[in-house]
């Protein structure tokens, strides 16, 4: 089935430019008529899928849809987890303690977040132009207020604050091109209104125009403790080579992006840089994890064929489109002391099934170790602490009680409607 690309917001289906700069804005709707007028003004600014350059993506929290006056019978048809919101799901997601909603950065997780606007551009000038357009649109409507802004940009290294190239393992989506060695995932896993991997379709709100061609967006601000991470590796390695190897074992890839499975002994920058090769691998010949540990971050987030023989899980039901970006200044190379700066990742997920995609991956694969037969372990980078095992000959290495290297600063579950749905929202009228 062909995707209606002209009706789908660009940010959902297309990878961000590289390098990139971007701005996330959160808005509160104080006057729903102004809110709807803003939606109407934004529609022409949302380049349809397929367009390049700077683009804007607009998404709404459940409270935002309520604030705009989407009627109850329509609201009732959205995914239950979206209706509850991320803060209400925090305990399930493992966002507790210092990552708990009571410690989130305001207004994240609160009742005021209604509209999320993401602008990504290949350069600052394009970004400024796009943000200025959005700002002018917003200024016309005083009943809508900007309550949060977060800038992001690709670090000069092209890598995350932890020092690794990311955003590599995106799923191939049927109808949007193929990736080497990968059967594309059905479009309905990511866009509402199309068949998904189960043969059915994700539940949709009524009327159909509101749901079809839309996608759920999960957005999280994740602070990274880079100095603590570097210090941890340094303290547990005899030399720089061992330090790099341990870092790679935790991630599942080398800093260049080269997968451990294809480059088990050392980084291979040409492999890491080659999109035809850097994601074309499986774990079937490495079930014991001697090349890439079963507990490594990338292998947890997408176990590929590693669980196929177990019959309990269909990995294709748990894939995520990720559109993460970096924020904050990089910690200079070699620095092992925390400089107090806020830096990290804006994690962005897009998919049609937030519960069995984002929440499943987060709770079963990243926060837990039951699925790899290690209930006392969790993801060494983004997990809830616990142990981490590095299989190796002759004897495995086991690291005990890893400290958390990532702290959740907040986040929201949003819905990014189609352009037709945005028109439908803009056209809403009060009931007489």
């Amino acid at each position, binding site marked *: 089935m062909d995707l209606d690309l002209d009706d789908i917001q660009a940010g959902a289906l297309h990878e961000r430019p590289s390098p990139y700069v971007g701005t996330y804005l959160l808005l509160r709707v104080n006057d729903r008529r102004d809110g709807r007028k803003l939606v109407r003004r934004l529609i022409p600014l949302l380049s349809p899928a397929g367009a390049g350059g700077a683009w804007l993506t607009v998404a709404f929290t459940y409270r935002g849809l309520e604030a705009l006056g989407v009627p109850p019978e329509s609201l009732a048809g959205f995914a239950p987890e979206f209706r509850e919101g991320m803060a209400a799901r925090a305990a399930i997601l493992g966002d507790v303690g210092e990552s708990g909603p009571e410690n989130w950065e305001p207004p994240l997780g609160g009742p005021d977040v209604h509209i999320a606007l993401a602008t990504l551009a290949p350069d600052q000038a394009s970004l400024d132009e796009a943000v200025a357009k959005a700002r002018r649109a917003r200024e016309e409507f005083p009943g809508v207020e900007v309550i949060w802004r977060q800038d992001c940009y690709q670090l000069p290294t092209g890598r995350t604050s932890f020092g690794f190239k990311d955003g590599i393992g995106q799923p191939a989506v049927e109808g949007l091109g193929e990736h080497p060695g990968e059967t594309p995932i059905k479009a309905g896993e990511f866009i509402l209104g199309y068949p998904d*991997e*189960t*043969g*059915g379709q994700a*539940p949709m709100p009524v009327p159909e125009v509101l749901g079809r061609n839309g996608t759920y967006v999960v957005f999280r601000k994740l602070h990274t403790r880079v100095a603590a991470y570097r210090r941890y590796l340094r303290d547990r390695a005899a030399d720089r080579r061992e330090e790099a190897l341990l870092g790679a074992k935790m991630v599942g890839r080398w800093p260049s992006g080269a997968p451990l499975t294809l480059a088990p002994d050392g980084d291979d920058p040409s492999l890491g840089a080659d999109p035809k090769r850097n994601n074309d691998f499986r774990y079937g010949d490495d079930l014991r994890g001697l090349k890439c540990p079963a507990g490594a971050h990338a292998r947890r987030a997408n176990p590929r064929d590693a669980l196929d*023989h*177990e*019959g*309990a*899980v*269909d990995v294709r*039901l748990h894939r995520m489109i990720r559109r993460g970006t970096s924020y904050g200044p990089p910690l200079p190379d070699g620095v092992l002391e925390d400089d107090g700066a806020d830096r990290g990742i804006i994690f962005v997920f897009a998919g049609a*099934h937030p519960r*069995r995609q984002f929440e*499943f991956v987060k*709770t*079963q694969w990243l926060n*837990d170790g*039951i*699925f*790899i*037969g*290690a*209930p006392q372990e969790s993801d060494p980078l983004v997990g809830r602490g616990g142990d981490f095992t590095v299989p190796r000959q002759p004897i495995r290495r086991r690291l005990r009680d890893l400290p958390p290297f990532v702290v959740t600063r907040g986040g929201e579950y949003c819905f990014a409607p189609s352009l037709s749905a945005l028109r439908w929202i803009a056209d809403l009228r009060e009931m007489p």
Partner: protein
Amino acid sequence: MTTSRPGLSVGPTSEFSLFFHVRPGHGPALREALRELQAAPGYRDGDYDLPIATIHEARFVPFDDDTRLLFATSFDGPWDSYMDDFASKPLKLFDAIFRHVEGYDGLPDLESVKKFILSAQVTAGGYSRNYGGTVKQIRKAERVNRAFQEVLDDPAAAEALQAPALAPLLAEAAD
């Protein structure tokens, strides 16, 4: 034992019980289907190779003169998180059995299958276990014990196990 989700869990493992009503007159056919399942590879006595590798054991129990059917198992992980996975593929393994129970109309779509399962699920009133490990951990433990027994069968083992680092193994070697 925790109760925050459907099904009780102990450590990493959760109990999962389904109670069905057998279609009138289908008792004998159900019995036959269960016999066939029991004879299938993986399910046979001694095979220890169920197609779903994260369940510890599974039983089908016809009761009330074969008018009811219980399916009971212990599963590694919170089973409700894996509902979509079960409903989309592994359930087909039990198609020949479920066709004899009410409410089952084949597998037309995921939502109706999930509804079928959830309507039959009953959370236990009590659930206890004698070991804490997952199936993966138990299988690893069995492999390690087999290897250890092999070591003990080697005449050189008594001397080798004297090494201080092997003291915990030596402590397990006497019986």
